């Protein structure tokens, strides 16, 4: 019951690397912000799955912190883009 977690994480990490391509290509800053936001979401999934894979329950806290905090940096980027900062 360990291997599927790792497989899922592997696919997700590949997806993260694909999102890196959008970060590189993205013509505007907004595209890049979207890419980073996507990576945040994926990272939370990765962290949760890895926590289960390592059988360390306490690792899930990291995922919560991640989910909440990346949101704030996204908001700062959005506020800067909107010219309100």
């Amino acid at each position, binding site marked *: 019951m360990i291997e599927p977690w790792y497989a899922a994480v592997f696919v997700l990490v590949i997806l993260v690397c694909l999102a890196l391509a959008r970060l590189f290509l993205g013509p505007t800053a907004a595209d890049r912000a979207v890419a980073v936001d996507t990576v945040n979401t994926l990272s939370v999934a990765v962290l949760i799955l890895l926590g289960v894979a390592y059988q360390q329950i306490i690792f899930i806290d990291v995922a*919560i912190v991640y989910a909440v905090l990346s949101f704030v940096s996204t908001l700062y980027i959005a506020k800067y*883009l909107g010219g309100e900062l």
Partner: protein
Amino acid sequence: MIADILVLACLSIGILFNTLGIVGLLRFPDVYTRMHATTKMTTFGSMFTALAVIIFGGAQFISTGDSQYVTLSTHTIIAALALAFTNAVGSHAIARGAHRSGLKPAPAVVDRLEEWAP
């Protein structure tokens, strides 16, 4: 046993939707449409992976009676809720910022916001 199958099913659904989301991110023409792909599909996919973990935790709790699996499930629920909540608000903020920075939806049939222009 049935829990295992459920977990696997949820995981594969989650992975599928995440993959589609990334494909959309790479494929769609402009920011807003890309945002459609990522916001909805990666959130949905990550929720499903979280659901897999929750089901796993619940099944383990029932079979072993170890209270740490309750912790696992509750924390995962909180993470998933936080994810949904923050993603919705965050993508709204990015969309708003992008529009205010002068980025027009490229292939648009109608743009009412442009006419309103606060």
